[in-house]
Structure formats: C-alpha cells, structure tokens
C-alpha cells in the first residue's frame, strides 16, 4: 500500500499528458494515420513483393488492374510498390533530418541559455541563419555537393546524406530559440541553484536537470520537424534537385508524373496524397502534443 503510494508520483509524470492527448480526437486521428502510413511503408513491401525497379515495356502507363492495383508508370514499373519504397525513403529523410535539426537546435539552445558568455554569439548565429533564404540555399547546396558526394558514397547514399544534412543544418533555429528561452527561465529556478550550490558540474546539471525539463518543447519541435523536413524534401525532389530518378521518393514521383499530367492525371495523385496525408497527420499530432504538454493546457 505505502509502496504503491510512493511509486505513484513517478508513474504519473506522463499520465496527465496522455490523458489530455487522449481527449484530443484530432491528435489521435493524426497519430493513427501516421501509424498506418508507417505500417504501409514498413510491412507493405513484405506483403506486396513486386520489384519497384522492374521495367516492363509491354505494360507501360497501365491503369489499375489486379496485377498493378494502382497501375504502372511510363516505364511499366508498379506504382504501388514504388509508393511503398518511396515512402520509406521520404519518411527516413524526414526523421533523420529532424534528428539533426532538433539535436543541433537543442545543443545550441541549451548552450546559449545556460552559458551567458556563449549567448550573444550563438543567438547572432541563429538570427543570421534565420535571415538566409532557405529554399535557394538548399537548392544551391544540393547543386554544389551532389556530384562530389555521389562520386564518393554512391548515388543513392550520397544524395540521401546530402539532403538529410542540408535540411537538418537549415532547420534548427526555431528549436534553438524555444529551448534557449526555456533554459533561461529554468536557470533561475531553485533546484538548479541548489544543484550549483552543492558543486554539480555544469555538464551534469545540463544532463540531469536541464534537459529533462526542456523535453516538452523538444518533443513538439521534433514532431513538427518531421513534417517540415518531409515538406522540404518533397519540394526539392519536385524541383528535380533532390533524389535521382531511380530513387522513388514521393516528391520525385510527383515530379516524374507531372510530365504526363495531361494523359494520366491519376498518377500524380497518389504520391501527392501520401505526402499531404503524412504531413497533415504529423502536424495534427504535433499540435495535440503541444496542447497536451503545456501545463496551462486547456
């Protein structure tokens, strides 16, 4: 009895968040949809064992049939299989770029918020990055390093690392600002002062006390960051400055299908709808998480 009571506060740390999130139908629908999309791209290729790269000149530009539920593209490749494989790449880019962006943003935010000496420099840097025109810079980055990285690491890997790195390096600023503001208010709190008073080194204060307390904004940033990264990746691919034609990301598939828009308008709809649904579901989830993690939450 007493044991259970002692354990209760520990267990219930995330419980109110979950309760609030459970009350938010839009966020739950977003989470369910995103989970469904994850299942589609992860388990899909195991069940639907059609080679997404297999070229079949006799069956080009086919409409939906039993053999090809969504039809085939201009080279006779199965659209459903390409959607599944393309989704893997698109989602992987989204998650990896988010990890870089949020990781970098948290690092910069904590450093700037905790160490006053670094604050000025780091925040000027953040302002500078915010003033850079992102889409043109990303296009230029891809243009500059595509060949070099593709030659060194192979076409697909090189482009993947380049796109992930470029998006990550240009999307950390908002996380950094939010985290910095949170760290600055945290620093004035008594438990941090107490930790400093007993001689805890800054490194341990940050890992033990600061980071767990800025987790909420970081989680929200991370969720919304996935959506943002997917948007940017598909925009780059759509402009033809992302993945090469044989790597079917959703954005690349829209890019390829646009040339056949007049004859086969249906082909552009599937990848476009998948991008939109993914971003929409992640945004709804992120919005719900923000409301649920806010202690003043309504």
């Amino acid at each position: 009895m007493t044991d259970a009571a002692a354990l209760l506060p520990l267990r219930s740390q995330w419980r109110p968040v979950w309760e609030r999130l459970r009350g938010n139908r839009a966020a739950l629908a977003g989470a369910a949809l995103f989970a469904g999309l994850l299942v589609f791209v992860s388990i899909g290729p195991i069940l639907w064992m059609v080679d997404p790269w297999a070229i079949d000149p006799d069956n080009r530009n086919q409409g939906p049939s039993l053999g090809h539920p969504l039809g085939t593209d201009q080279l006779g490749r199965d659209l459903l299989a390409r959607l599944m494989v393309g989704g893997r790449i698109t989602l992987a880019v989204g998650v990896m770029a988010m990890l870089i962006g949020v990781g970098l943003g948290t690092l910069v935010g904590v450093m700037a918020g905790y160490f006053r000496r670094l604050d000025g420099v780091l925040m000027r840097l953040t302002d500078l990055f915010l003033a850079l025109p992102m889409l043109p810079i990303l296009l230029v980055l891809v243009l500059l390093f595509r060949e070099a990285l593709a030659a060194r690491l192979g076409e697909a890997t090189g482009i993947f690392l380049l796109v992930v790195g470029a998006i990550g390096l240009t999307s950390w600023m908002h996380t950094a600002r939010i985290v910095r503001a949170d760290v600055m208010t945290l620093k004035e709190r008594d438990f941090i002062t107490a930790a400093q008073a007993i001689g805890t080194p800054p490194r341990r204060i940050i890992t033990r006390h600061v980071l767990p307390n800025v987790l909420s904004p970081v989680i929200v940033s991370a969720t919304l960051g996935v959506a943002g990264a997917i948007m940017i990746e598909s925009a780059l691919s759509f402009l033809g400055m992302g993945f090469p034609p044989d790597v079917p990301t959703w954005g690349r598939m829209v890019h390829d299908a646009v040339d056949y828009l007049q004859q086969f308008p249906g082909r552009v709809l599937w990848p476009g709808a998948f991008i939109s649904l993914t971003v929409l579901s992640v945004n709804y989830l992120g919005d719900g998480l923000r409301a649920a993690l806010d202690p003043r939450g309504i």
Partner: protein
Amino acid sequence: MLTYTMRRLALAVPTLLLISLIVFLLLELAPGDPMAQMPLTIPPEVREQMRIALGLGEPWYVRYVAWLHMVFVVEPSHMLAAATGVDLAAEGSRLLSWQSRAPVAEIIAQRLPQTLWVVGLSYLFGILVAVPLGVASARRPHSWLDTIGTFIAMAGFSVPTFFTGVLLIVIFSVTLGWLPSMYDTTLEVTDWDSLRRQAAQLAMPVTVLALYNAAQISRYVRAATLDNLAQDYVRAVRARGMSERAVLYLHVLRNAMIPVVTVIALGVPNIFAGAIITEQIFRVNGIGELLISAIHANDIPMVQTLTFLFAVLIVLFNLLADILYGMLDPRIRYD
C-alpha cells in the same frame, strides 16, 4: 522610434554584408565551369583568356568586392538612369549573366512583374479570406465552424503547394478545360477579352498561394482575436450595450490586427520563396523560375544575385515588421 529605426537600419547593413559573403563563398565552391558549354575546339590559351575576361582570374576577395560594387553601385545607378532618363550611370562593367550575357538587373527587372502579380494578388486574397475566417473561428471556439476552419488551415499548411497546384491543373485544365495550365507572358492586356484571359491564367497560381497564405494567417487572426475577447475592455464595451458586431469589428478586430500585421509583414519573404515552386508548376516566367533555370545552367552571377535578393527581402521585412509593431502598439517602446 526614429532612433530605433535608424539603429535597426544600421544593424541590417552588416547582416546583409555577411549574408552576401556567405552566398558568394558558397557559390565560389561551385564545381560548375562556365566554359563547360563552349566548343572543345577552342584552344586552351584562348579558353584561359575567356576565363580571365569573365573575371575568373582574380582571387575570390577581389571578385567579392567587385561583385558588391556591381550589386550596390553600378546596377542601381543604371536602373535609376533608365527610370529617370538622366545619365546617372556609374562607371564600371555591369554584372552580366553567364547564360544570356545580358545585365543581371535587366533580366530580373523583366521577370519581376510576373512574380509581383502572382505574389501580390495571392497575398491580398489570402488576407481577405484569412481575416473573416479567423474571426469567425474565434467567435465560437470549438464550434463546427472553428473545427472546419482549423482543418482548412491545417490542410492549407500541410498540403505542399506543388500538390495543390497539380490538383487544380487536373481539375480545371485537364478535366474541365476551363483554365490554361500554362502562363502566357506575351499576353498584353489591351481590351476586355485579354483582361479575361489574363485573369484566367492568373487564377490558379494565385489560388494556390492564396490558400497557403490564408491557412497561415487565419491561425494568427484566430489566436489574436481569442486573446482580445478575453480582455477586460471587451467586457466594458459589452456592458455599455454595444452590439456584438460593433464589439467584434470596431474594438476587437482593431486590436487583434496588431500582431497579425507583423505576421503579414514577416510572411512576405516566405511567399516569394513559395513562388519559386508555384512558378515552376504553372510555367510563370518570374524570378523563381529564373532562379531554377540559372541553377541548372550554372549561371553563378544570376544565382548569387537572386539568392541575395531573397535575403534582402527577409531582412527588410523583418525590420518592417518590428517598426510596424512599434507604430501600431503604443505599449511597445523600443527606446
């Protein structure tokens, strides 16, 4: 206020210089050779002379300063001379596009009107949709209207502009055949018929961007209206017996627009960037399309200038937003 404005303007100069340096250096790394498209029969020594003629023989800092001089002194003076007819043009060679050998500023000046039409109209329509939608959502939070408004905003925010654009083409050009899917720049508005054609070809690009803008702005309108509705002055106005319409449109909206106006100012550079994609879909030959074609053609002076132009937009509108905020809200004092 004036001193604050001057201080911010002074601070914008080093920021812009730093950005111009970054943009310049980034493109210095470009592996693309402007000579790559020249015939292989050109002897190496002639090729070297051509490189020097393009200014590639100098070290990067010399070229950076020369570029700055061209962007800030030579080109503006030529533009001014062309606009006023007075011979003000500064000495020195002009900044030429490697692709067309024409001055960069002139090409941009040719392309800019198309972009400004699309971007300007879409922003106008976006605001016209967003304000009533946001106010209506805030009036009855969590009503069905608010839920639909939230969904529209979320969808407008989440569906990439290239997909909305393609979707509109499929519906209105391919299936219904009502609107042209390609923008015709040669069209000159001279009579009613050409005006109608101009409106028809602007309809889809403007709708795509307007939807995206409306989605963003309506959220801010909603939040700002909700904030204001909870204030004491609203209760006081209601206690004086004013109609709900008067409360909303005479008192709340005016106060709610203060943060919204700054958001609108901050959003301007974003929609120029959004226009890059929209112009690509509808083949509008504006500056976005110019940037993409310049990137594909390794036209470095053009890419540098355009990228820098986008950066100037960001810095300028950030500044404008801050100044507007101070002017509109007397509680904000920067000094």
